[in-house]
């Protein structure tokens, strides 16, 4: 089935406590020089073809529900 992926990330200016904790843990494990920001990935299966209209509709869904655009940004990509 065709799939569309929505990636949601905390906006750069918003503090990311989870990413910060992961960054710290990596550093303690010896993975130096890596800075992590943690987001979410939604894999969406679509009935029928992935047309520009379908992508636009999923963009609407992301704007309305999947992301909170006060603190997060998102992108929509056909997989």
């Amino acid at each position, binding site marked *: 089935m065709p799939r569309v992926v929505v990636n949601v990330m*905390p906006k750069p200016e918003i503090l990311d406590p989870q990413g910060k904790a992961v960054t710290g843990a990596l550093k303690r494990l010896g993975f130096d020089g890596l800075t992590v920001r943690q987001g979410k990935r939604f894999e969406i299966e679509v009935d029928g073809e992935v047309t520009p209209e379908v992508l636009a509709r999923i963009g609407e869904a992301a704007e309305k529900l999947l992301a909170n655009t*006060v*603190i997060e940004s998102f992108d929509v990509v056909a997989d």
Partner: protein
Amino acid sequence: MVRIGVVTFPGSLDDHDALRAVRLTGAEAVPLWHGSDSIDGVDAIILPGGFSYGDYLRCGAIARFSPVMSTVIDAANAGMPVLGICNGFQLLCEAHLLEGAMIRNEHQHFICRDVRLRVETIDTTWTCAFAKGDEITIALKNGEGNYQASPETLRKLEDNDQVVFRYLDNPNGSAHDIAGITNERGNVVGLMPHPEHNVEELTSPTLDGVKFFESVLQFLSARV
């Protein structure tokens, strides 16, 4: 008698505490249900603490689209007093009745303790019985209470006197030490601490929560 509704969502925890606090203050407590779009003719609404819909996706994000919320949003926009406590505050932000959003606490810890707050404005339906500058102690318990908003929004909140409560000792990294805010009209208030837990001597170190409920009664009785 003034009737105050408390909405129960799947995953609400403090709905019964809120109902009890309403009763103790002398109003009629009306249980409301997330799955119904009726608010049963109440005069004011409380969105309680808890983990509505498991807090899946984001805190309050799914509850925001429950049937009762469309009625709550209309009522809030028409001027009805609405108080969001903890998860209820997150829900009001998701519903865009209040500005900004909550992220995870700085340092990732779940915090459960009494916090000191300063009442910054009494020009709201839920704080009019306080005096401006009052310092109060209220229970706080959450993992995602770190209030954030854009610099423009924060400036607007400060300029319009919409910051209602500030932490005296910021426990979670909230911008501008913000513990609670209101909308422009002052009828919708959200805060992370739990005033409904500070209404009885047996279980709380202070009775500072009582004035939240007295405020709305004072507001509603003045209106009639």
